[in-house]
């Protein structure tokens, strides 16, 4: 076997090895992508929990149960079933939470959380409004 034939033989082996590796990879792609999406969602939940713990828990409670007259609960039936109607919000609950968090709340919508009237009830949290949070 001359050098050229040896190169051709090794090239054939390398091609087969590469093709095998790509086929093996292809067979596992769906599972890999699923695992990645799960992991990515999990990390977003962790990040969200961290943000809540750092910025929201003081007023709304560590488990979203609310803190006296400081901040209403966010995990109770009233919030999920009646809140949107109470404020006249036409969109989804997610949009309401996103909008309120980003823009803050100038005045309270329930007497219990009216504050003393000299300051906004909840400051804006979005970066474009001066807060620390990205909008994504």
């Amino acid at each position: 076997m001359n050098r050229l034939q040896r190169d051709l033989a090794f090239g054939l082996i390398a091609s087969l090895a590469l093709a095998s590796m790509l086929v093996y990879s292809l067979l596992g792609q769906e599972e890999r992508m699923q695992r990645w999406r799960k992991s990515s969602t999990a990390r977003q939940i962790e990040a969200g929990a961290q943000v809540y713990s750092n910025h929201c828990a003081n007023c709304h409670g560590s488990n979203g149960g609310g803190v006296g007259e400081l901040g209403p609960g966010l995990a109770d039936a009233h919030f999920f079933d009646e809140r949107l109607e109470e404020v006249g919000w036409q969109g989804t609950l997610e949009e309401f939470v996103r909008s309120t968090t980003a823009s803050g709340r100038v005045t309270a919508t329930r007497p219990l959380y009216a504050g003393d009237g000299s300051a906004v009830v909840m400051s804006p949290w979005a970066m474009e409004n001066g807060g620390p949070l990205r909008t994504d």
Partner: protein
Amino acid sequence: MNNLNFTDPQPELAEPLKPTKPENFLQRSVRALAAGLSPAELRAMINGQEITERPNPRLRAHVLSFLLHIRPRTYAQASTRFSYTFYLGFFTVFCFFVELITGIILMVYYVPTPESAYASMLRLMGEVPFGELVRDVHRLAAEAMVVLTFLHLLRTFLTVAYRNHHRFTWVTGVALLFLTVALTYTGYLLPWDQLAYWAVSVGSGLASGVPWLGDDLTLIVRGAVEVGADGLLRFYLLHVVLLPVLAGAIISAHYYRVARHGLTLPPSVEEGVLTPEQRQIATRRIPFLPSIFTHEMLLVLLGTLVLFAAAYFFYDAPLQSHANPQQTPQQIEAPWFFLWVQGLLKYGDKTLMGVVVPVLALIGLAAWPYLDRNPSRLLRKRPLVVAFTVILLAGLAWLSYVGTPAYGIQMPPAVQIAQALAPEEGLGPLRSIPYAQLTPGVYQPVGAEGVARIEPDGIALTAFLDEYSTQVGRFEAQMPEAQAFLIIEEPQQDLKKLILRILWSDAASPERETFERVIFLHRSRNGE
């Protein structure tokens, strides 16, 4: 040896082919695709036989084919040895083409805005088949290209392959080293994660060290005072348009000069004592077709196999959390190929160490062939250069070590412990504990003498608590009477809250000092 003589010594190669007998469609097609080589000629090449027709079809192919006309027709045997070049230049260009191809694929999915860049990375990894592999190959080949370019330059330097006509070839090579690093650095920002954002924020700040023009240069590089949408777009355009075009042009010029003026012979052949037979073998001309061509094709296949296998089995391109200008990481680390600059900065001010020294080094490197007066190419006759090279490489290694975050900058002990156990980015020992073993409760691995302890449930948690205890024990002197806690809560289904809390006495204060780090861990973090 001039291999690209525009006044061709064999003008008959350009004459139209006149086959001796009629050819069928298949034979004509093979000739059209194979730069004039007939099926019989291809068979003869594979079997190591002589040419089958005149003029020599294996040389004629260099006239007929655009791609082959820029390749030398013949090579001196000694200049093709692996032990001389290590194929470093070849694999550098190979990596460049891998980057072009994988880069174009990535461009289909990437969006260069701060609002969408990170999300496009997540989409690429989670919704595009082979997305993760393509990204890993792209990043790995980029880093390999920096290493290969450097090694190629080093080999050329040590074998003095920059003499005579190749002095300017060396200059183009130094320009390519700069462009390779620039390409890798501009690509570094694109994922728009914490690693990218802060590395580029710090690195681009070096531009302000340029005398008189610093602020304007920083504005040009970043597009704004801080790295943001404008900076990302500029880095993206540099990375996918300007720098690849420049690199392609200079690679072409570089290779043209190599082919025009001929590959150099090893110093041992040029200046060594060889027998006439050895010299004849070393200087024997080998045609590009078929041997060198097929050998290069084999190298391409092997390179692709190694790159893809390394990316698939051993390498994961990093992707930290989303870039956050309002959250400075505990440790900002430059890309590894810039650690030496970060090390320099720890020895002096930004202008001198961050701008003047690196620029002078680059100019000195480019000008070296014009300054080198030693007539010999043999290493044993160049002891000063060898010593200088060793010192330079050792210096680079030392500066790179100094440039690592851990050197010279001490975080408070409690922060160091928390970073070791539950780093801001990445897994770390705490997040590596299987979710099921994180039984809610309060665990006290340090300072629990006389207190009833909850025993951990599971090997991994036990091992972690031992590691926790060891870490706290390292700082016994700075943190006397320390107590360390791990508190595990479960605020909602599939989510646990882990609190590392450390208390210690401080002689300067009657109160106990407290440090706390809170992390959340989801059941599916590892994709389960």
